[in-house]
């Protein structure tokens, strides 16, 4: 301990700053935590949603599969319809691609606007190969997302779209 102990003024400054800071934090902490809650809640588990597409009917040509499910958005529950482009690749595996363009989120379609053997996005002329790989020189910078797939009673089921890792 130094010969000059904490002065009365310093002591009051420290205590008041500490108490004031504690009170400010006590007010701000609940509000900030309240605001960032969606970020900390994390992702919901991706359930598989049933579709009406028979797996046996799938060929190497992508077909459009629309499927509906109950979506819970906080206090609002609604039926939404999503779309996938589904085909069987060379190895016979089912590939289900999300139609959401990786450029700015428009909707792509197979061989749209007469682009043979490609997915086409009408907003900024984005193109993807059949595998979902983005064509270099067009706006999208990433391949189309893929749905995890499952089969139940001969019908296709689709999960939550994931980033596509094909190179």
């Amino acid at each position, binding site marked *: 301990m130094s010969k000059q102990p904490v002065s009365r003024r310093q002591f009051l400054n420290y205590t008041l700053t500490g108490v004031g800071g504690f009170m400010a934090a006590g007010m701000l902490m609940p509000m900030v935590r309240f605001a960032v809650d*969606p970020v900390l809640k994390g992702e919901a588990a991706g359930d598989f949603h049933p579709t009406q597409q028979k797996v046996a009917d799938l060929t190497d040509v992508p077909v459009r599969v629309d499927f509906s499910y109950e979506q819970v958005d*906080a206090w609002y529950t609604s039926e939404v319809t999503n779309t996938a482009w589904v085909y069987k690749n060379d190895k016979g595996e089912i590939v289900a691609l999300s139609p959401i363009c990786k450029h*700015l989120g428009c909707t792509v379609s197979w061989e749209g606007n007469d682009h043979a053997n490609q997915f086409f996005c009408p907003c900024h002329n984005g193109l993807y190969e059949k595998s979902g790989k983005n064509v270099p020189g067009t706006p999208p910078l990433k391949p189309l997302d893929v749905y995890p797939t499952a089969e139940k009673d001969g019908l296709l089921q689709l999960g*939550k779209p994931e980033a596509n890792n094909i190179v």
Partner: protein
Amino acid sequence: MLNKIYDWVDERLDITPMWRDIADHEVPEHVNPAHHFSAFVYCFGGLTFFVTVIQILSGMFLTMYYVPDIKNAWESVYYLQNEVAFGVIVRGMHHWGASLVIVMMFLHTLRVFFQGAYKKPRELNWVVGVLIFFVMLGLGFTGYLLPWDMKALFATKVGIEIAASTPLIGHELKVLLAGHPDIVGAQTLTRFFAIHVFFLPAALLGLMGAHFIMIRKQGISGPL
């Protein structure tokens, strides 16, 4: 009558110096369009403020009818526009004013830039002005979603995807804006409403206060 009321209050609170300090200043000759018509370029900052006041007032009145809920938002906008007297005018003021405020702010920025009025000692006021510019763009972005029509929804989806492309914190930023990792929906609308009506206007008023205090302190930059 009014004079008597003023004197009665002034005698007790001495309010004359307060408003004198704010309002009683001569406009320098080189800034006054009455002397040199070309000085109209100095009006754009004031016009930005004028339109901002209109935006705040018309926005306050719009919230008397508007509901920030995805089931009722569009219906409430439709109602206030088509069923309420002068609804089309009040919403029109807010709609066109939103664009006009950007135009005026841009012209003001150009004037300050080309006159070099941002140079020492006014650098800080330029910085605050740029912050006001960002807040205004934020107000435009969040306000665009509120009618909850197709144009609003998809414009916001695109805007949120742009935010998501931010390096490192893109995903967190997206969820913070949208209120949900996947859905642009109920929570997005309430968030955007809160940001549009409370958070950004509060920031805007603070920044504008700083902007004006600095002008008063430093004076308007001299003639070219």
